């Protein structure tokens, strides 16, 4: 009886020492989970999740203040990836934050633009080129389609143009055939 208690005690002490040592030796600086969540988010910086950017939203998810289904540009695939990372169950996108739209790029109508720089200040990735009283233009490659430049414009000269499929960005489609045992495809 005594020997068994002593053995268990001894094992507990050894394991406790190993754990304590590891927690000190292998301590990770900072909180890597925020970076991991941020790398899943699409970096549109649109604020539809009710946070001022993707990093604040990632921080909120890590703290448990925000749900994982608040990002429309990330789409269903993004929610699933977040669910897997955070170890929670998948839930469909929260419609109150918006719907997933195909990628679009802003376009400034140069005839109407008055050079007020309000849109330049609004753009979260500095994708608008221009200065006061000078023509403004969108740098196509940098625009994330967040639509934050549309509300500030006093003359409503900015429109969103969706990117059409062309010979450069065309992709092969998922082969569809009429067998109903195909597992449901994840919609991108």
């Amino acid at each position, binding site marked *: 009886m005594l020997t068994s208690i002593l053995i268990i005690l001894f094992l507990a002490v050894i394991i406790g020492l190993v754990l304590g040592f590891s927690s000190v030796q292998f301590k990770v600086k900072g909180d890597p989970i925020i970076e991991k969540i941020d790398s899943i988010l699409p970096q549109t910086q649109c604020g539809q999740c009710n946070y001022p950017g993707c990093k604040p939203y990632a921080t909120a998810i890590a703290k448990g203040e925000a749900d994982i289904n608040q990002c429309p540009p990330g789409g269903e695939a993004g929610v699933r990836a977040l669910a897997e990372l955070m170890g929670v169950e998948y839930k469909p996108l929260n419609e109150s934050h918006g719907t997933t739209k195909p990628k679009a790029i802003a376009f400034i109508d140069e005839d109407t633009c008055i050079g007020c720089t309000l849109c330049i200040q609004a753009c979260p990735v500095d994708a608008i080129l221009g200065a006061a009283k000078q023509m403004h233009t969108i740098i196509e490659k940098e625009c994330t389609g967040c639509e934050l430049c549309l509300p500030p414009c006093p003359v409503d000269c900015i429109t969103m143009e969706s990117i059409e499929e062309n010979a450069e960005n065309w992709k092969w489609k998922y082969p569809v*055939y009429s067998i*109903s045992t195909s597992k449901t495809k994840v919609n991108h």
Partner: protein
Amino acid sequence: MFNQQSPFVQKAPTVTLVMMLVMFALLPGVLAYIFFFGIGVLLNLTIAIITALISEYFVLKIRNLPVKLFITDGSAVVAASLLALSIPSIAPWWIIVIGTLFTIIIAKHFYGGLGSNLFNPAMVGYAVLLISFPAVMTKWPLPASHLLDFNIAQQIQIFFYGTKEIIDSVSSATPLDYIKTQIFLGKPFDLNFTNGMPINSYFNASIIISLSFLLGGVFMWSKKIITWHLPVTFLLSLALISAIFWLIDSSQYLSPFIHLFSGGTLLCAFFIITDPVSGPTTPKGKIFFAFGVALLVYLIRVFGGYPEGIAFAVIFMNICVPLIDSLTQPKVFGHE
């Protein structure tokens, strides 16, 4: 129909054709079986196939799948036939019906249907029957040297109205069973006519039936339905393992020849472990799988509680298949 892209030509046998070829390959063995053990086998096969098709029809309807497409692929027929060939020919009708229902509905469709079953369906059905009805499942009839030795009417009667007493009167334990019991009791056994146990005639029947299945297996190999890896490795491993033990003590252990030609060894080697869905897909994996099955079959036969260990050996190795597959991936061209 789908938007077809390349390749625009194809030369492949359909799943239905493959299954029909397997049934054709089973034919010599089935005929030999009927010759030695009576038409009970035929009755079992017929009821098995009918039950399989009817149950599959209903399950497909419930699952909302295209019925015609799946019922004609022949996989249910093959699974049911293999089960029918594994059980004693004088088993009553409800044995094969329960076994087939289990095979088709639970072992095949509950796991996802064609292509998704984790375990060999026929073996699952057999294992369930063996564990649930051990008495009936271990009563095999005595072999005859002539088909007409059997009383067909009696066979049919046993099939449909079989009671324990009637079955007892026409059956006996199989040779493996008998020998195992003798070893357990510490009594010597003689491979000749001993204690009213016509072992010789049993073995004659076994050898001819096994050779017929071998013929069918070689036919399947020539038609490229199976590769050599699984049957050859299984038979060689079983022979090797049994030879080692036999050389150590030939009075306790049976010779490799007996192990290879008794029970369902050759049926297993060519038809049961070669089930593509539950087996491994890589060539090296097939060798490991077949070796594992052979080892387990031998251990269960000699040291285990059942006289025939094929079903459990196959089911156990089926669990290991995903691991075997992932560990035996061949090196891609140029990546060596």
